[in-house]
C-alpha cells in the first residue's frame, strides 16, 4: 500500500488535523516508509490464523443494569465552549 498526497490530505481532514501544505510532502514520505515497514508482516502466511482483537485472553467484563452515575451537569458543562446553564453551546451546525 502506498499513499499519495491527496490521500494524506483526506485522512487529515477526516481526523480534523490541519496539515500545512508545505508539510504534506514530507508526511507522505514518512508515512509510506512506515507502511513499507509494516508490510513486511505480509510475508507471513496467516491463512489459518484468527484475527486478534486483543492480546488479553479474557472475556469482556460486564456490569449490572443499575443507575449509578449522572447528575453532574455543572461539572460536565465546564467543558462547553460557551457558557450556558443547561446545554453545551457550539457554533451553529446547519443541515
Amino acid at each position, binding site marked *: 500500500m502506498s499513499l499519495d498526497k491527496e490521500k494524506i490530505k483526506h485522512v487529515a481532514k477526516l481526523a480534523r488535523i490541519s496539515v500545512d501544505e508545505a508539510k504534506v510532502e514530507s508526511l507522505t514520505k514518512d508515512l509510506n516508509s512506515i507502511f513499507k515497514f509494516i508490510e513486511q508482516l505480509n510475508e507471513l502466511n496467516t491463512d489459518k490464523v484468527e484475527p486478534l482483537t486483543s492480546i488479553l485472553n479474557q472475556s469482556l467484563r460486564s456490569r449490572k443494569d443499575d443507575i449509578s452515575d449522572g447528575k453532574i451537569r455543572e461539572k460536565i458543562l465546564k*467543558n462547553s465552549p460557551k457558557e450556558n446553564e443547561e446545554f453545551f*453551546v457550539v457554533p451553529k451546525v446547519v443541515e
Partner: protein
Amino acid sequence: MSKEKFDYFIKGEKGKYEVVIGLEVHAQVLSKSKLFSGSSTKFGADPNNQVSLIDSAFPGMLPVINEECVKQAVRTGLGLSAKINNYSVFDRKNYFYADLPQGYQISQYKNPIVGEGKVLLDMPYGSKEIGIERLHLEQDAGKSIHDMDPSNTYVDLNRSGIALMEIVSKPDLRSPDEVNAYIKKLRSIMRYLGTCDGNMQEGSLRADVNVSVRKEGDTNFGTRCEIKNVNSIKFMQMAIEYEAARQVELIENGKKIDQETRLFDTKKNETRSMRSKEDAHDYRYFPDPDLLPLKLEQKLIDDLKKSLPELPDKKKERFVKEYGLNAYEANVLVSEKEISEYYEEVAKLSDKKLAATWMMGDLFAMLNDRGLDISKSPISAKHFAELVQAIKSGEISGRIAKEVFEIMVESGDNPKKIIESKGMKQQSDPKELEKMINEILSKNKDKVDQYKAGKEKLFGFFVGQVMKLSGGKANPQLTNEILKKLLKG
C-alpha cells in the same frame, strides 16, 4: 386476493418501475442505565442531567458493558428467529459531529451479536417473509437543537450512550404498505419481548430508509439512496414515494443516480442531499481497544430462549385454534400485547367470537375517537365481558347494547346495573310480544290487508311499530317469528 392487484409500481414515460426498499431500524433498548455507563436512560429529564464522564467522553474513562442490554439484544434476536453469535466484537465508527463527544460511536461492524433472521408480514395478498441481515448493539448520540439560538447549536447529551439495536433488513420490501407492516410487526415483537417500548414520538424507534428503483422485471438492483433518521411510519412512506419518483425521473432523463445520504424534509415533503455527510461513509472502523470481544455462553442463550413470552405469530395461531377466530380477527387482536391480553380476559368470561366482533367494532372505534390506548380504556375487560354475555344470552338486543355501551363509557358502571336501572332488558316473553303485536295489527288493518295482497315490504313497517311501542326492547328475532305467524293467520 391476487397479488397483482396490490403490486406497487412507479409509472414512468418509458415503463413501470419496481421500488426496492431496505430498512435500518434503530430501536432503543429498554434498560435502566446506558450501554457503557451507569447514567439513567429515562426520557424527558432536564438537559445534560443524565450524563456521566464516560458519556461526555472525558479522557481516561473506560466503558463497561451493561449485561441487561446484551440480554435484550439476544432476546430480540431470538424473537426474529435469528442466529445468535457466541462471539461478537465492538468497533469504533469514526465520524465528527457536535453531539458525538467521543468522535466515534461504539458499534459492531464485522461481528455483530445477532446474524440472519426473519420477520413475517401479513399482507392482503398473503404472508410475506422479510429477511433480517443482522442486529447489532451500538451507542446513541446526543441531541442537537438548532432552533434555540440564531448563531449557536445547543447540545443535550442525555441520549448519548443509550443502547440501540440496529436491525438491518434485507432489501426485501417493495412498497410503502410493506414498510408500514414491517415496522408495525417489528415494533409489536419488541413490545411483546419488552426489549424496546417502540415509542416513535420519543424517538425510541426510527429508521434509515434505503431506496432504489429498477425497471419491472430487472433482477439487478439500481443505485440506492439512504434517507437518514426518519421517525414516523407516515414520513417513511412519504419519503419513499418522493424518492422513488425522483429516481425514476432521473433515469428517464438519462441521468445517473448518485449513491448518497439524503434527508427527508417533512415540511416540504421532499428528500434532499446531505452535503455534510459527504465523507460519512468513510468511517474507518476498527476494534475498540477499550473493549474485549463479547463471548456468550450457549447456556445463557438457551435460558433466554426458554424464558421468552408467547410472540404474536404463535399467539395468532393459538387464537384461531382456541377461540375460533378467523385469521384477520386474530391478526388484529394480537397486534399489540395489551390488546391481546384484554381480549383473552374478555374471552374467558364471555362468548369468544362475539367478544372479538364487539371489541374490533365499538370498543376500538371508541378508543380511536378518544385517542386512547387499550390500557386506558374506560371500560374494563370484566365489564366488557358482561356486556358481551348480556347480548349473547338475549338479555339485550344489539341495538340496546350500543346504548348500554355508551353509558358504560361515560359512567364506568357495570352493564347489569345500567340495564336494570334504565329498564333496558329485552322483551323476550312470547306472550307479551304477541299481545303487543296483535294490538298493532288491529290498529293497522288497512296495512295488514295490503300486506296480505302481496305488498310484502310492509313487513318492515310492522317491525318498526313493534320497536317503537316497546322502546326498542322487543327481541328482534322473536318479533320476526311472531309477526310472520300472525300475518299468515
